[in-house]
């Protein structure tokens, strides 16, 4: 049981939620998403993002549009689908519950 192991799993768990949150604000391309994550102090490299986005897309939660870029090849702009919105709502609830539970537990002093 190593702390960095748990930490990385916790991060992985909320990463998809974070990404969906960013995309729900506006359609974004991967390096933009990374930028947003960094701003929010979520430490993640781009490498982690690509497989995740592809997976979410294949699950029908995301869709993308090709947009020409003058900084290189065309970019994939990702946006939420209908089911993506529903999914995000589910995650939002779960997160609220989890955060609430953890806060409660932190504040409760146990006398044994």
């Amino acid at each position, binding site marked *: 049981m*190593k702390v960095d*192991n748990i930490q990385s*799993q916790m991060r*992985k768990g909320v990463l998809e939620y974070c990404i969906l949150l960013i995309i729900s604000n506006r359609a974004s391309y*991967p*390096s933009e998403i990374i930028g947003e994550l960094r701003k929010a102090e979520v430490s993640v*490299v*781009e*490498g*982690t993002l*690509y*497989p*995740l*986005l*592809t*997976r979410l897309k*294949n699950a029908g939660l995301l869709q993308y549009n090709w947009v020409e*870029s003058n*900084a*290189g*090849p*065309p*970019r*994939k702009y990702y946006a939420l689908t209908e089911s993506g919105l529903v999914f995000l709502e589910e995650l939002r609830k779960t997160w609220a519950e989890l955060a609430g539970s953890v806060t409660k537990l932190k504040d409760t002093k146990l006398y044994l």
Partner: protein
Amino acid sequence: MKKSISVSLGGLVFNIEEVAYEMLNTYLESIRQRIPDAAEREEVLEDIESRIAEIFHGLVNDAKTVITESDIQEVIAIMGSPEAYSMDDSENTTGQAESGKAHQTDSGSTYRDTTQRRLFRDDDEGIIGGVAAGVSHYFGVSPTLIRAIFVILAIVGGSGILIYILLWLVVPQANTTADKLQMNGQHVNLGNIKEHLRKMKDKVSEKANSQEFRDKIKQTVDKGVKATAGIGNVVSKLVGGLFLLGGIFALLILVTVFFGETGLIPIVGAGQVENLATMIEILYPGDAQHTVIFICIILASVIPVISIVISGIKLLFDIRKVVKPMVVTGSVLWALACGILIITGIELGMNFKSENEIGYSVPVDDDSTDVLHVNVGQDDVFSDHIELSRVWNYSELIKVTDDKIFMGFPNLRLVRNRSSDAFEILVYKYSKGSSIRAAVDKAEAINYDVKILNGELILPANYSFPVEDKIRGQMVVVEIRVPPGKKVVFGNDIDRVCVNVEGENYYHPVENSYSNTVWSSGRDGMTCQGCDIVQRIDR
């Protein structure tokens, strides 16, 4: 001057240094291996290539037109190490414990996770050479357990020491941080990739052959490796394990045969077996060579076994390092040892070339006696419990002292006397030698004194000859010629010699024992009186 290649990435063309190309290629390849799903893999790689193209695009300008190694490092820093691409959290939440395994992909091929544990020696936690500590990391058990196993193996036959030394030689020491991480099965960071690429760069720049040819080979090898990796890994582990176990077992036996009590080995049996060094001494001519021959026998037999053990360890723990000086030295030593053994073997064979027999007549006190009692004297050399029918090989019947070689079970031949009416007793001594003269000398030197005491013929249970004579097939046969109508009575201990009766018609019920039997000379040969007739043997 550096060679550069032109590559197309995300629909754009870039000039890239050859070394940088290799680095990028390795990077993409290791990402490829981390995405198990084939369709997903292609799409992700396309995205990644596209993104890398974008980064490259930002890097090149009119002044800088070629992508260099440091550019690739920058790309890797932005994109993250190949581990970052692993998405195996959905199938595998146990993380570390599982990360050492090869993952099955959809296409049926397997790949190896670079986070796999590898066997290293751990000098930091080690006591002698860090072998036990390293092995314990590999299996994830306490080093104390491994040490205990080594100690037990060292006590039982000493193989633990040998195995330890072998592992010490074969298993690389964990020097770099990456080694230490891999030893513990932890993720390898960017530093390791760089190191790996640096090595690769050296290799690449060494070969200035045509690019096409190299690409072709690389592709073919890659394909082959991928296709066979799955089956290959399992088979090689299996074979490695078998090699290791078989080799260790063989080593155990060899070590015991060479240095220890051969009696420890169940298949050889009784404690009379002399050890190998003594056997050489009493067999090979001359004195100076004995040590050489002993060492040669050890080398000739142990080197192949050790190489099997080493290849077993290598297969099992996936060590690819080849210690060239060790291989060369081993091969040369082995060839040398075999050569010496062949030459000395031929020389030894020449010592058995000639053969000679000498016969002595033993006077019988009372010519007119009708009954001759025959018995075997007390044996002060060999155990009383030896039975000829149970003797596994004749080495059990050899005993060597400072000046004499003793051998058990002389022969006794009982025949009819066709030419005389009196008992005749003859002692024949046989030997071989390099010449007739040598054979005669050796036969004469055999010491075997039969005695007649109170009308009873006493045969010694063993014969001896000087240790300098070596073993040259020396043999003793006592022949008793029984005149018609007269009898021979065997005593209780007669089975301590190897009895052979002329025209013997009877098979003896109790383990072929001749003990206390009476034989009379008749027309058909010797017949037994008082023997239970169990089976008639028709000649």
